[in-house]
Structure formats: structure tokens, C-alpha cells
């Protein structure tokens, strides 16, 4: 495919190419499957608040959600899963469902709902990337969207109050992390020696939790105790993203386009 594939997503910080989980999933998958992706860091659109980010733009179509983007890339013959057996493919779907159901509410809570974290880390970061006056509105909308999602999916009776829901979702998230750690064991990736879709999803959800420094991160503490998951994130960052810590600084608003092509050319695994 010679047509350029352009991905619009939130930018990076703390050593990550992107701070947004779903964008990171797509970027990791593109690296694993060898798709040449041009990353465009967005900052001034309403799309972020509607949850449409990341967006893949090609010449003729626009694809919006991570699952659909991955399907699209697979159809373009960028497939990271061709070495998996049928059962492993089924396991991938199941573990992705587990992550979305158990881990995602707690990650959303840590980033967007926990007031210490939100006001000292998340909101300033996003506000610095969105021009005035949207910077006053968008982070608030994203936070309300996250709270809404948590309460609608997990806040069913009799857990009425947010505090009780919090206890439940953190417990579930810790259990999910333990399960993932047990599954990974000592191997380098989840299915053998080559990374696949499941590795992209796990990396996408864990890496922001691992790298971003929060004042109140009980889930982060739990993750740091699971050394094989931390080693997994570090391995992927070093081999596929090859970033020095200074390359993506928090306040680098002038960097509009990051051409991953030149980093891509250093990879020998594609």
C-alpha cells in the first residue's frame, strides 16, 4: 500500500509516544505489523471529546475506533496475528474483553475522576495541548464522560455511591492485572516470541498507567509490583519506539507531525 496512512491522536509525554490508551494501542499494532503510519498530533478539535480519537485517514476512508482501525489494517495485509493458532486468536478476543471490562474503569478513574490526579496531572496536560477557549471546556467534558461511563456500567444498585463503586473497580482491576501477569509468566510476549494484537492492547492500557506519575496511584503501585508486566512495557518501548526520554516532552506543542518513518527504518524486525 503506497497510500499514506495518517493517524490523528493525542501526543506523548513521560517517555510515551502517546498518553491516550487507544491511540497507543493503534500505534503499537502498527509497529508490530509493519504498517507505515504517519502520526499527526491533534490538539484543536472537538473530536477528542466525542471519543473519536484515534482516527485513521487514508485517501478514501476515515476509520475511527481502535477495533475498526485494526481490522482495516489487517485487511490492508498488515497483520500481526498470522502466526497465531485459532485458539490463540480466540484467547486474544477474550483477554481484550477482560481488559475492557475490568481494567478500563479503574484506568479511567485514575486518570479522569480521582480529583488529585485529574487536577494536578491530567487536566493541565490536556489543557496545554488544546487552544483557548476549548482548553476550559474539553477536559471537563472528557472527565464527565469517564465518570458517566464508570457509573453506568459499574454503579448499579446497591452500589449507589461512587466510593463503593471505586472500591469495587480497583479490586477488579488489581485482579485483572494479576491475571495478566500470571498469563504472561516469563515469556517475552503473550503468544511466543512475536508480538500480536493482545500485546498491543495490553501495552496500550498499561503503559500510561506505568509511566505517568500520579500523586494518587494505588493501581500504579500495584502494577509496579508486577515486575513482568513492567518489563513487558519497557521492552516494547525500547525495541519498537526507541525514544529517548527527552524526545517527547510535555510542553512540546510546536511539534505538529512526528514522522515515525525514520524511527521505523531502524527496526529490523519488520
Amino acid at each position: 500500500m503506497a497510500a499514506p496512512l495518517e493517524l490523528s491522536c493525542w501526543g506523548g509525554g513521560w517517555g510515551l509516544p502517546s498518553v491516550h490508551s487507544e491511540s497507543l494501542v493503534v500505534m503499537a499494532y502498527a509497529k508490530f505489523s509493519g504498517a507505515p503510519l504517519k502520526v499527526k498530533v491533534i490538539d484543536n478539535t472537538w473530536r477528542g471529546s466525542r471519543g473519536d480519537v484515534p482516527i485513521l485517514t487514508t485517501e478514501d476512508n476515515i476509520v475511527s475506533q481502535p477495533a475498526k482501525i485494526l481490522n482495516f489494517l489487517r485487511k490492508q495485509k498488515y497483520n500481526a496475528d498470522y502466526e497465531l493458532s485459532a485458539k490463540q486468536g480466540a484467547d486474544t478476543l477474550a483477554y481484550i474483553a477482560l481488559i475492557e471490562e475490568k481494567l478500563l474503569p479503574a484506568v479511567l478513574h485514575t486518570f479522569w475522576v480521582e480529583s488529585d490526579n485529574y487536577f494536578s496531572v491530567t487536566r493541565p496536560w490536556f489543557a496545554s495541548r488544546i487552544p483557548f477557549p476549548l482548553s476550559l471546556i474539553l477536559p471537563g467534558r472528557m472527565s464527565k464522560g469517564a465518570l458517566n461511563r464508570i457509573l453506568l456500567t459499574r454503579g448499579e444498585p446497591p452500589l449507589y455511591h461512587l466510593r463503593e463503586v471505586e472500591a469495587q473497580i480497583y479490586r477488579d482491576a488489581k485482579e485483572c492485572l494479576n491475571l495478566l501477569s500470571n498469563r504472561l509468566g516469563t515469556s517475552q510476549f503473550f503468544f511466543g516470541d512475536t508480538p500480536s494484537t493482545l500485546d498491543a492492547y495490553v501495552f496500550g492500557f498499561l503503559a500510561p498507567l506505568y509511566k505517568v506519575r500520579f500523586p494518587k496511584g494505588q493501581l500504579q503501585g500495584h502494577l509496579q509490583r508486577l515486575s513482568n508486566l513492567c518489563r513487558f512495557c519497557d521492552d516494547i518501548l525500547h525495541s519498537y519506539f526507541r525514544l529517548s526520554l527527552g524526545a517527547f516532552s510535555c510542553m512540546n506543542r510546536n511539534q505538529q507531525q512526528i514522522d515515525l518513518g525514520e524511527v521505523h527504518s531502524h527496526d529490523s524486525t519488520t
Partner: protein
Amino acid sequence: MASGREPGTPPPSRSAAARRLGLGNPRARGGARRWRQRKRSPSTVSCAGSSWPGLAVTLGSSRLHRRPGGLCESEPQPAPRLVAAGDAGVSEEDAEGREERKPRARGRPAAMSLAAEAFVSQIAATEPWPENATLYQQLKGEQILLSDNAASLAVQAFLQMCNLPIKVVCRANAEYMSPSGKVPFIHVGNQVVSELGPIVQFVKAKGHSLSDGLDEVQKAEMKAYMELVNNMLLTAELYLQWCDEATVGEITHARYGSPYPWPLNHILAYQKQWEVRRKMKAIGWGNKTLDQVLEDVDQCCQALSQRLGTQPYFFNKQPTELDALVFGHLYTILTTQLTNDELSEKVKNYSNLLAFCRRIEQHYFEDRGKVSSSVKSS
């Protein structure tokens, strides 16, 4: 109500006057009243399970007690009497405390619920499974919907697999009787547990478990596949019932509101539809078309079929709760008649899943003389 004490024997060192005034247990002096009640009456509050929403609640709770046509007649609730009897003080305080419990429970710290959970599990473990355990669901013929039927069948299959006797009772207000608002729920002894997750934990606390023989990795896989079924199959069923206009108009509204008079039937149906649509939008299914939903169902069935392969059950020889859950959903999809047959066609593409459903139906339902429930046989 209180464990280990015969009704009629007064508790030690408590005067009748003290009980009447609601001052009670000297052990808990100075503690919160709520905690005192919890210590005295068994199986109060929280969940025996940890990874799923839903609670186990005593039959003394206000919700059940107030419902007409509910479970009151079977519950030996002593009338509040100011006589020196062991349980009277308990029931009085419960009667007063119950009304207050709900608002106070909202501010309850999380650590308390963990301790209460352990307490409940202990209580659950001491009593064996009674003969008169009942499962409540909505009316089979006119009211129950696809997703509720699937959940109910999954619980029935699970209890059959554990060899625990259960009687199925159909009530129009089952959804409102349930402690978490979801059907089905089971009434065992003096505890009420709803939804498959907490029921599995509750049964495990009583000493019956289907997944003990699995190692850690297999347990992780089982949990992941159960989430997959809930995430995809259950959400697709809810979408089809409440967000697809054709089905909503022809089937769902009529069935959901059938026990109620006009205009309550319309109001309740619209309210529920609004709630479900809000939830769908929050999880990103609001903009999906029916075709995309059916594609997701197909993907899910393909994953289940690949995982099952040629084995009799998902984890080889012995059935687990995953088998019960998958059976519940697939059997209901196959045997429910909707406006079109696309959903069941997607499942019928996978012959090993069909054989799996037939095997479980024959082994656990027909052989034991029970007829498995179905809304309309296709």
C-alpha cells in the same frame, strides 16, 4: 435471625428495657449502630463475591419486605413485641434500622464491606444447601425477555451442574425484588443472591465449586471468556431488544409491560429503554448498526467455537460456570423467535456449539426430568 441462638432465649446480660430502648449489645457499645446490627443479625449486607456487582442481602431487608406478593409469606419475621425474647430486640432494631440503613449505607467506607463479606461467607458456609431453594425470574410465557431468559437459564444450568436442587418460580415483579435489580436471583435459607457471578461465589462458600480443578492460567482464561460472553453476547442481546426499532415495537414493549395496566406498561417500557440506550451510548455501542452488532456476535461465536474445538466442555471433561453461561446464552438465542432469524443463524453456523448446547440440554435438563425454559420454541 441471630446465629446459634434458639428463639425465645434472651441474649446474655441484656435487660428487656435495654432492648426496648434499642440499647443493646454491650460488646458493641460506642460503635455505630449499623455495625451493632450487623454483628447480631447474620448474613447482613455485602457480597460473598468480589469480582462482580451484586450483593447478598438478608430477607429482613426493606425492599423485599415491602413488596406485595413477594417473599413475605415464607419468611418467619417475628412481629415486633416488647417481650423478653431473644429475637424481639433484634427484629425491632432491624425494623427501625432498616429504614435508616439505606441512606447510611451510601457513605459506608470500603473497608467495612470487605470485613462484612468475609463474615457473610462464613455464615454461608455453615448452613448446607436447603431443599427449598428457589430461583425467581419473570413470567415465562408473557413477560421475560431474551437477555433475562439467557441469564436465568445460565444460573439454572450452573446449579444443575453442581447437583443442587432449585425450584423455579415466576413472578411479575422479580426484577424489583432482586437486590441488584437484575434477574435471576435465588432465595436460599435466609439469603438472597442475584446474578451468576455472586451466585457462583455464594455456592463456592457453601463448598460446591466446579472450577477447583483448574490451574491459575485456566482460571484466568475462564474469567476472560466469561467477560467476552458478557461483553459481546449479552450486550448484543440488549441492543437487539432495546435499540432495534423493529424488535422494540413488536416484541419488547409488549412483553415488558404486559403485567401492568395502562399507562404503566408504556411508562415502564420507555423508562427501561431510555436506561439501556444511555448505557449503550456510554460504552460506545450507541452508533452501531444492526449489521455491525451481528458481526460482533459472529466474531464472538467464532472465538467460542475455536476455543471449544472438539472437546465436550470448555475445560475438557468437566463443565464449569463458563459452560453454563455459554449454554444459557446460546440456547436462548437458538430457541427464541424474534422478528428475524439473523441472530440464531449466526450461531447455527458453528456446529460444535450446536452439539454443545444439545449435549448440556440432554444431560442436565432432560435427564433429570426438567424441561428447559424457552420463550417460544422455534
